[in-house]
């Protein structure tokens, strides 16, 4: 078993030891989403109009909420030093950490969102399309959020700072993710949007691991 898989499996095993942490994130996602009908009113046509945007924003916040601890736990117990000193590229370690984060947040959020979409009055292929856009888009959030988490490692007030750093960088993903559902409602396909989301994910995949590794190295100095 190589270092990447070891680290990925270790992080997943750590989550399994405390499943409540993931539960809290998913519960936040549901509760935050449910607040919108209460605040805006229950008219189905209004809710269906805003559903994609609301669910995407809530997914973004839920992902960021859980990113705070992504590297902080390793930083505090000294296992980050072991990753820094592992005889394989730190970029792969960064990728493994973000992949683990996506599996325990992005993936369940993508599965949960269509159900909430139905509650918001989305019908036809829209709930499924919403799930697909989240599935393609959330890896980008995990990578960008992972970078923000690495940059704020050991900083004062890291939680709020993390959100300030990550949110502007997540805007393109948000625009095309939520835009896909509107395009669908307007009678266009979602293929273009999903393709652009995938391209954004590839750009993040090609750039963030290096930036995360650089940030972790300087945090270890």
């Amino acid at each position, binding site marked *: 078993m190589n270092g990447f898989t070891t680290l990925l499996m270790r992080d997943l095993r750590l989550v399994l030891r405390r499943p409540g942490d993931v539960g809290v994130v998913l519960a936040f996602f549901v509760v935050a989403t449910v607040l919108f009908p209460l605040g805006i009113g229950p008219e189905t046509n209004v809710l269906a109009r805003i559903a994609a945007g609301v669910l995407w924003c809530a997914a973004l916040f839920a992902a960021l909420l859980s990113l705070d601890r992504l590297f902080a736990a390793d930083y505090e117990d000294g296992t980050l030093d072991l990753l820094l000193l592992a005889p394989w590229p730190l970029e792969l370690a960064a990728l493994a950490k973000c992949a683990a984060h996506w599996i325990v947040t992005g993936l369940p959020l993508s599965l949960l969102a269509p159900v909430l979409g139905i509650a918001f009055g989305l019908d036809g292929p829209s709930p499924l399309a919403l799930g697909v856009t989240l599935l393609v888009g959330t890896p980008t959030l995990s990578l960008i959020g992972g970078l923000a988490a690495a*940059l704020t490692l050991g*900083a004062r007030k890291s939680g709020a700072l993390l959100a300030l750093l990550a949110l502007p960088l997540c805007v393109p993903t948000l625009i095309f993710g939520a835009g896909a559902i509107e395009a669908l409602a307007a009678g266009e396909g979602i293929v273009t949007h999903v393709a652009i989301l995938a391209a954004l994910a590839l750009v993040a995949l090609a750039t963030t691991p290096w930036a995360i590794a650089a940030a972790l190295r300087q*945090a270890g100095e």
Partner: protein
Amino acid sequence: MVDLHFLANPARFRRFSQRVLPSLGFATALMLAVGFYMAFFVAPADYQQGDTVRIMFLHVPAAWLSMAGYALLAGLGASLLVWRHPLAALMARAAAPVGASFAAVCLLTGSLWGRPMWGTYWVWDARLTSMLLLFFLYLGHIALSRAYDSPERGDRASAILALVGVINLPIIKFSVDWWNTLHQPASITRLDAPAIHNSILVPLLWMAVSLLMLFVLLVLLRTETEIDRRRLENAEAAA
């Protein structure tokens, strides 16, 4: 081409900036005074925008400078991370609030232009929205560079952020444009550099140069302060 490489040394930079700052300050003030005169009394009213075109003389150069400022941050970030230039970190720390201020000027003047032209202070215009996101990127840079007990860590973290940010800026711009064309009826007057006529272009470029001088002045002044502040911190650490 003047070789500016000698400025990479903080102490030499400090002597250089102390020498040029007074004359640069005087020249900037003069340029701005002439620029204001041109903007108010020389430039004619635009046939479409009326007198509000005079706001463009501030708004457009501020937009240019805030974008150039972020590119500067990225360049300084690269020179810190790759060549470990000690001055780059200090100059980035000095330049970020300047760039953010120009972005704020751009946003506020844009909003004051929008009230008479669009009938509202804020429209989710593609350019304004991109500028708002650029402003947030600046805020993140400033907050990150000051978030650590050790200033060196803040320097390097914000350098990485600036590099990632500069890669993402075109992507953000592209996606905001896309989003804007989907959501906005295209019939409104664009918040844009006006139809270029010399009577408008000359004051616009004049103001751009004046504000560029102000930008340089502020960065030099603040870099000098950062050099002194770092010396002070080092003296305390050594004591």
